[in-house]
């Protein structure tokens, strides 16, 4: 492996991605990684103008119904399942709220079945539920989805492997470099312990940050229970002025 010369770009952009909180690409317990994880090291690249830019989003592009998965595919009745409110806040590593950034979610229905041609699990589809949701964060970085709690389901990995209940979250942030897709799990789910996908993250506290906390205070009486899931995207690189006297 040749040594890489210093990248010639300005030290602008974003903090380097901390790979200790990111999953390993090759993780044999999750069998699909065996044939798909690159075998060569990723090549370091200081973000250039191409990566510190990215798509921007307008509220006009979002229909408010897409934050309500009980309504956005409804034909003649509410979808079956446990009415669930998912809330949270999106910040960067410095704690700055990320407003007007696009969040897309997808999930199985209450029986653990996806509305997808490739899902052949025997559990039934729900004609009133698609599992698709979309919103923009508000001016404080907050988001909210109303949905049903997805069911667990088996998947082809080991002799008897099951996915814990989870919701997929896709989030953009301010640049192509901050792009992130993850999964949110539910506090107290006994399947979390043995999940090979969660296990691909080396740091246990990083794993636990993907588990949404049950939030009784936000639950709505006679309506729905609530879970809280906060997200953190890469922060901008800081310029260090510590050695300068104030005012200069």
């Amino acid at each position: 492996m040749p040594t890489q010369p210093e990248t010639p770009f300005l030290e602008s952009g974003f903090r380097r991605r901390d790979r200790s909180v990111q999953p390993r690409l090759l993780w044999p317990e999750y069998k699909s990684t065996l044939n798909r994880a690159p075998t060569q090291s990723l090549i370091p690249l200081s973000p250039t103008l191409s990566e510190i830019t990215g798509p921007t989003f307008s509220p006009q592009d979002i229909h408010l119904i897409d934050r309500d998965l009980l309504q956005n595919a409804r034909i003649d009745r509410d979808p079956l399942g446990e009415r669930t409110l998912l809330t949270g806040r999106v910040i960067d590593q410095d704690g700055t709220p990320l407003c007007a950034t696009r969040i897309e979610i997808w999930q199985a229905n209450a029986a653990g079945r996806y509305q997808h041609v490739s899902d052949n699990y025997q559990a039934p589809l729900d004609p009133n539920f698609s599992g698709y949701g979309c919103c923009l964060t508000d001016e404080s970085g907050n988001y909210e989805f109303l949905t049903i709690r997805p069911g667990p389901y088996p998947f082809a990995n080991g002799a008897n492997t099951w996915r814990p209940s989870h919701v997929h979250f896709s989030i953009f942030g301010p640049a192509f470099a901050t792009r992130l897709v993850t999964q949110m799990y539910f506090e107290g789910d006994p399947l979390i312990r043995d999940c090979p996908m969660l296990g691909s993250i080396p740091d246990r506290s990083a794993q636990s940050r993907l588990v949404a906390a049950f939030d009784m205070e936000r639950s709505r009486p006679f309506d729905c229970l609530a879970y809280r899931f906060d997200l953190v995207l890469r922060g901008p690189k800081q310029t260090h002025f510590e050695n300068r006297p104030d005012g200069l």
Partner: protein
Amino acid sequence: MSKDPLHHETSSQTVGPFVHIGLYPAVSGIVARSRTYGNQLATTHAYGQRIRVEGQIIDGNGETVRDALLEFWQADGHGRYAHPADPQAESADVGLSGFGRSVTNPDTGTWTLESIKPGAVTDLSQQPMAPHINLALFARGLNIHLHSRIYFDDEVEANALDPVLQHCVPAPRRQTLIARRQETTQDPCVYRFDMVLQGKNETVFFDL
């Protein structure tokens, strides 16, 4: 001055095989009322040479990946990004979306992108970069998405001066980032960009 400790970035998880529901809903028969993003980036008003890029993704067994999703981010025909970090953002071409998505066909494994060829981008360090499309690859079995770039084989001079190709990527691997123009008289002109996930000719992926 007291400093709050940094927050950790949220960990990634794979998009899994049902990614289309959330990121390309039409494939799942879902009619999304919010805007969705497809593989047509340019309107007929966009400035630049019309191009079509297509390719397949090959796994470690030599098989085509049929459940992947790709995201593209590119500059307009003059090399300007429609984003506030670009000093030229205000004059960026409104006929180009800049961002798009494509999915590999479940039968053939081929993905396609229709756009205009981006112009050379001048980085904030004032260095010109050869025309390129930024790419993020998501799929079952990828615990975190992979970043790559698509360059063009008919930009020989610009590629030879491109700081990323020349300074970051070892010479024997550079060709994995270069799309090959196909022999065709069609308009738009067609480029082929296959990606290899493992082994010989493994595509370069970046740690941004």
